[in-house]
């Protein structure tokens, strides 16, 4: 048993729903009690979908439990088949149905509906949402895709985009354009927009573009082995990664690595002097492994930030993220416990977080700006405008996304110079973000006895800030104060100093100057 307040991932059957809802002509019969239908509104509200997810819930109740829940499942399957006339169905259990062991997968196998009925085994008490989407897509591909003749012209499948994905809708457009520039056409995009009949055509592509390993890596490996299709390993998020992706695709497809990057503004925006203030900004990254991996590179090599910590919530990718962290000289945080993530951020005191909606709230609490780079998503992550993460336009979008939460260049300097100003002060936050300005509260002088207490002998290994040093620390603008505090304490510890004076503070500043 584990106490959870907020979760990064839902149960695995929600992952299956993300695949089913993205597809067309597929129906999911889910053995589940009433209430599990809440998941429908994730799609109709967060993503503003104009159709109900193609899911029938058996809706068993307590009084059914002693009787015939199995029959209820069979009826639901038949009704859904008659009403929705799907090309294929997937069937499975939610967490409660898993406990009553009706074996819907087995039952479905005995019912001959004349269409593929694909059983899903998604262990709810062991695995989570991303496993559910990856496994579901893999089972669908395995059941339906077969080796067929390749297209005469070189073509690729784009695999991985699903419902409730972070900017998947727009990434498809961007990657399609990248391929077209090299003369490669798109055979099938799946799961998003694909019908089971399209899955059957997947074998015609020459290779697969694995856009989101979280949702399609198992399927990619299966197709590599059984359909002879290699798949791309580079996820084209960021300028460097997009160039690497083009080179990788050219190698696989045997074409020229052509790229028309006339629309790409990101490098110049980053090089222009206005961006100098971004140099060395300390950032913490957290999200799904794919986005964190790509954004760490963008943060360091394309924005000039300093990555002070990174991690992911999907354990399946722990090894990769640990490797990445080692490369960046930081420690990886692999956790789905949001309190643990909050603690890590608090300890590291970064100047910005690149995270999910969860980190956005953590940032709000700690007063640290946050840019969202990964699922889990919120209605805000489905903007009306074109807003990809991948390719050239993706790089442009990312630049804007990472700059927007920060206090901008000159404003930062003015805060340094006139931090005592009553309306243009630390706690007022970035001026372009609106919100009611808070007037500066003048702090009372510390009581004499408190000062005395601070000067009292500290315990072994404990560091004490002397009152003047503490006051001086407060004069440092909020967005670098965390770093200054941390560096000074680290410096003091290294020097064996137990009491931090104003002098220690500035000695540390000189020590860490860059």
């Amino acid at each position, binding site marked *: 048993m584990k106490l959870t307040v907020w*979760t990064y991932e839902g149960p695995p059957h929600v992952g299956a729903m993300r695949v089913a809802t993205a597809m067309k002509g597929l129906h999911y019969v889910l053995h589940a009690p*009433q209430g599990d239908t809440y998941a429908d*509104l994730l799609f109709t509200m967060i993503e503003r979908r104009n159709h109900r997810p193609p899911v029938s819930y058996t809706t068993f109740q307590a009084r059914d439990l002693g009787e015939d829940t199995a029959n209820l499942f069979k009826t639901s399957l038949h009704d859904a088949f008659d009403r929705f006339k799907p090309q294929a169905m997937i069937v499975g259990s939610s967490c409660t149905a898993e406990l009553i062991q009706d074996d819907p997968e087995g039952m479905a196998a005995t019912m001959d509906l004349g269409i593929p009925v694909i059983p899903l085994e998604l262990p709810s008490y062991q695995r989570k949402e991303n496993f559910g989407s990856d496994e579901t897509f893999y089972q669908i591909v395995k059941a339906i895709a077969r080796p067929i003749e390749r297209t005469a012209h070189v073509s690729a499948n784009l695999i991985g985009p699903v419902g409730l994905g972070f900017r998947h809708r727009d990434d498809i457009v961007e990657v399609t354009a990248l391929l077209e520039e090299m003369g490669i056409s798109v055979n099938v995009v799946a799961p998003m927009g694909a019908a089971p009949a399209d899955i059957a055509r997947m074998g015609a592509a020459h290779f697969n573009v694995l856009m989101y390993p979280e949702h399609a890596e198992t399927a990619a490996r299966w197709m590599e082995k059984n359909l002879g299709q290699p798949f791309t390993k580079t996820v084209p998020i960021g300028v460097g990664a997009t160039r690497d992706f083009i080179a990788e695709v050219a190698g696989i497809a045997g074409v020229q690595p052509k790229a028309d990057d006339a629309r790409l503004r990101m490098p110049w925006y980053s090089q222009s002097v206005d961006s100098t203030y971004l140099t060395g900004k300390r950032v913490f990254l957290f999200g799904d492994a794919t986005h964190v991996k790509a954004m760490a590179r963008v943060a360091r090599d394309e924005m000039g930030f300093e990555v002070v910590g990174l991690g992911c919530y999907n354990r399946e990718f722990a090894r990769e993220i640990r490797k990445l962290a080692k490369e960046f000289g930081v420690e990886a945080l692999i956790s789905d416990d949001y309190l643990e993530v909050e603690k890590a951020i608090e300890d590291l005191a970064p100047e910005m977080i690149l995270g999910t909606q969860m980190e956005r709230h953590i940032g709000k609490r700690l007063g640290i700006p946050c840019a969202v780079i990964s699922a889990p998503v919120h209605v805000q992550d489905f903007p009306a405008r074109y807003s990809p993460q991948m390719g050239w336009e993706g790089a442009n979008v990312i630049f804007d996304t990472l700059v927007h939460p920060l206090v901008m260049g000159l404003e930062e300097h003015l805060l340094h110079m006139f931090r005592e100003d009553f309306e243009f002060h630390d706690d007022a936050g970035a001026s372009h973000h609106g919100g009611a300005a808070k007037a500066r509260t003048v702090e009372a002088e510390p009581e004499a006895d408190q000062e005395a207490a601070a000067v009292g002998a500290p315990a072994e290994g404990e560091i004490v800030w002397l009152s003047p040093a503490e006051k001086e620390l407060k004069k440092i603008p909020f967005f670098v104060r965390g770093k200054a505090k941390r560096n000074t304490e680290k410096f003091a510890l290294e020097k064996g100093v137990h009491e931090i004076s104003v002098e220690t503070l500035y000695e540390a500043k000189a020590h860490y100057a860059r």
Partner: protein
Amino acid sequence: MTGFTPAPPAAGCRNAPVLKERGQREVFCGLTGIIWLHRKMQDAFFLVVGSRTCAHLLQSAAGVMIFAEPRFGTAILEEKDLAGLADANAELDREVDRLLARRPDIKQLFLVGSCPSEVIKLDLHRAAERLTERHAPHVRVMNYSGSGIETTFTEGEDACLATMVPTLPKTDERQLLMVGALPDVVEDQALSLLAEMGVAPVRCLPAHRAAEAPGVGANTVVALTQPFLNETAAGLERRGARILPAPFPFGEEGTTAWLWAVAQEFGVSPETFAKVTDAPRARARKAIAAAAETLGGKSIFFFPDSQLEIPLARFLTRECGMTAVEVGAPFINKQIVGPDLDLLAEGPVIAEGQDVDLQLDRCRAARPDLTVCGLGLANPLESEGMTTKWAIELVFTPVHFYEQAGDLAGLFARPLRRRAILAGLEGAA
């Protein structure tokens, strides 16, 4: 009680046939009530014993996540908890110990049962007794089920309040007990109206804090403020209390009828009643009239959601000039919504339970001007050109009593007004 509203219909819907359906339901389970209950009871914590699905539901239903350290959480069952119940109990005790150590401000802890905990027969009642002993006198641990196999949406609040009833102290005092978790602003308005009429003492269930819990006994008269409190009402009757039958306090008519039932019980004179209610009644009528301009002559179709459907249909048909096509409710207890059914003119289909696909067929065939439904159905229906009012807003907004009557009507008028404003805006959904 002077009549401003139409006379009661010749034949109401109390004895109308009820269409009972059994199929896929598009509703929340009872866990959802935690979203408002945990804000209402300020020293209570709700610990769901369930699965990752339960945690995900609460997070999604909350819509905007309440990151200010919510007073609820989920103890997620894992593989090893399913293997042996003895271990599951030990794990639960450990998690509760940890939680209470971290939150010393918690005085009431609700162990909330879920579908998985019910199916594996984890005895949360015994667990609550065991934990109450362990943490007495500081914390009282109670339990109820919010599971989807037993409760629909607002039945979670009913189950929560019902489990509190046996723990309330006994009192022989003559008192009015107002039952239902109302928004603070609404509760204060009701209390002030009652005080002006001289009705006293008035107590509330649930109270803001454990220490303010009301007593109950043979001289307690209960006024329900929500139509879904069936088990709570039954529990209070078992403690000797008497339930006042009345329409629910939605709209001017409902509020007046509800207050009048209380006034009669407590011997308030018609003059006093008029003196206290005339002004707010006039205000309410004026506010409703503004929205009724939009709503008048329009038809409405209710998908089952919160059990508020019947009193709301009564309000919208009698005070806003709407016609009800179908009024679906997850559960209908005629003892409690009888007075509202009496006032609802014969005609609409009264439906209990749900088979969502069949009900969608009926709704599409009827093409009502306004459809009240859950969030899973609202956007899909809108994209078909139907105007919808999403139902859970009715539970998350102050809508009771006079000063909110206009707001309540406005909630239904807004989608119609919006569709009219955007009539010239074209583009695929």
